[in-house]
């Protein structure tokens, strides 16, 4: 009996250790201490018509929360090392400090820090002065005001780089999986023609979350020109950056090896003083040749009714 008990205890101990070991190995391969964009490697594949082939699952940096540090870069700060960071838009150095504790942040500390970290970048759209207070108020009251709360679509350009691109001779398919938690959004897709057609006149379009996008190539850069939006989205999760139905978004996709760089320029003469271009985002190709996008969890907002402060959720 004793030997069985010993065997049982040993096995149980090993089983307890095993997941942690596996997790450690998994994290060790993807753990990042910087959020600088990934460097490209490999060659850029091309389609028979000679254009770069953008087809692929572009979630190599990790899905959902694992991608959050990269989102900080998306918002304009590049953490280059334990002692060096810079504002991407201006190149200004940002004081950087090694962590001085191994203790994790509690929820309150974590949410406050996450909210501040995403606001550090200086690349902000310049609204007409009469809207400055409105933007600020939207931002500070985002828990109530963010139109994407309650699982509504993120829209364009907030959705950023699609997690899947399917490229065909005369069209593209973009898929943006819904994500839960901090960056909860609804799954979106776009079918974007690239057959030389012209835009439908704006006044004939009913505004939608993803608008009417039409693609064309400028050299090796895919340009997606979209208008016909509703006004029920913001440019980003942070900032209160609203827009009118007169918004036009020019997205640029450029593949370099296993990386895809995306920017969006927003034109909205109704509310913006000048066009605004997002901080470039860089996605990494999922290296698995058989990679697929898993089904998104249904978006179900359960937190907002419990918020009691204006701290960003």
């Amino acid at each position: 009996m004793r030997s069985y008990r010993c065997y049982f205890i040993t096995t149980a101990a090993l089983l307890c250790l095993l997941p942690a070991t596996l997790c450690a190995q998994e994290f060790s391969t993807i753990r990042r201490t910087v959020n600088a964009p990934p460097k490209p490697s490999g060659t850029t594949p091309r389609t028979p018509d000679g254009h770069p082939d953008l087809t692929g699952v572009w979630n190599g940096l990790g899905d959902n929360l694992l991608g959050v540090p990269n989102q900080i870069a998306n918002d304009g700060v590049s953490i280059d090392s334990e002692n060096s960071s810079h504002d991407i838009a201006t190149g200004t150095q940002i004081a950087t400090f090694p962590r001085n504790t191994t203790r994790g942040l509690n929820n309150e500390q974590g949410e406050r820090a996450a909210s501040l970290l995403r606001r550090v970048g200086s690349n902000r759209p310049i609204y007409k002065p009469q809207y400055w207070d409105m933007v600020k108020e939207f931002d500070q009251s985002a828990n109530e005001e963010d139109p994407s709360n309650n699982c509504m679509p993120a829209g364009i350009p907030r959705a950023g780089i699609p997690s899947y691109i399917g490229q065909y001779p005369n069209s593209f398919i973009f898929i943006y999986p819904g994500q839960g938690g901090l960056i909860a959004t609804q799954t979106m897709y776009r079918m974007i023609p690239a057959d030389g057609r012209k835009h439908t006149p704006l006044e004939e379009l009913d505004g939608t979350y993803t608008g009417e996008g039409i693609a064309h190539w400028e050299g090796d850069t895919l340009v997606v020109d979209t208008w016909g939006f509703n006004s029920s989205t913001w440019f980003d999760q942070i900032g209160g950056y609203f827009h009118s139905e007169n918004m036009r978004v020019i997205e640029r996709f450029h593949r370099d090896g296993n990386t895809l760089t995306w920017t969006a320029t927003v034109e909205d003469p109704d509310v913006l003083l000048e066009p605004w271009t997002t901080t470039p985002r860089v996605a990494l190709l999922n290296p698995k040749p058989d990679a697929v996008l898993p089904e998104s969890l249904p978006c179900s907002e359960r937190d907002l009714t419990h918020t009691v402060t204006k701290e960003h959720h």
Partner: protein
Amino acid sequence: MPKKIILQISMIAAAAAFVGHTAVAQNEGKTGSGAEAKTAAAGETMDRAKVLRAAADALGMVRWSDIGAGATRLPGIDIITTMEIFASGTVYNGAQPTVAEYHAALAYIPPAMRVEITRKGAGEAASHSIQTVRENYAWNESEIGAGLIPGKGIATPAMPAAKGRLLQLWILPYGVVKAAIAAGDKTKLLMENGATVITFPLSGSLAGTTVTATLDSKNLITKVETRPDNPALTNMVTETEYSDYADHGEVLTDIKSPGHIVEKQAGRPVLDLQVKMVNANDPYLVFPVPANVKAATTQTSATGTGGN
């Protein structure tokens, strides 16, 4: 398993947990409080990086993300980019005190500040001014954002005021820490009356001015003096005292800001403000330079009569 063995294992585990926790706490105390640097200062060179880190920590400037913990371990960065200060108190025009409302909107990337002062009182005493600066551009606004859209307000160039307005940005506690870090080896530390004092030169358009900042026992900046290197400019010496630090935000950020600000220039009072609210959550504050201000700067530079 016998109860005695279980009890022994539990005690060992509890002891190990306690030791681990204590070790972490000690580690935090050593590196986070700056106390080590102060103790060492009695007879040794203080560690500049530790003192500045302690000052930044005291203000709540250093943050890192724990989201995705396990997959990432990013360092802390300075998260102060924009801020708003709402205050009321006394603003001095010469020696004449006036009760006023004060609203400062500021940014550090790029350096910019908009100060709106509403002086209360009867007749000529009542006034409203908006003074703005962004890098080397300075202008006055008839309303917030004046001069950016045709027909909407007037932006009046005020280039000679640029340096003085920028200085206000860098003598705030956050500006002091940022500028002291940026000054690198030029930043010096010393002890005066038991308090840590940081001294460093400003750079760029403010070169030629030395800042001296005093920390209290909690590493909060309590006093900032700026002094032109040119001794003939003693009338430009400023002294600012900060006290009553707290998180004054409607949206709490754990960023500490002074609740009382007293500024003097050449020994005479300039401002005595009680802070009502501070929005430190990097609010949307922008400072586009009106075209006429840019044009005026170009003309001024061309004729060589500018204030810069």
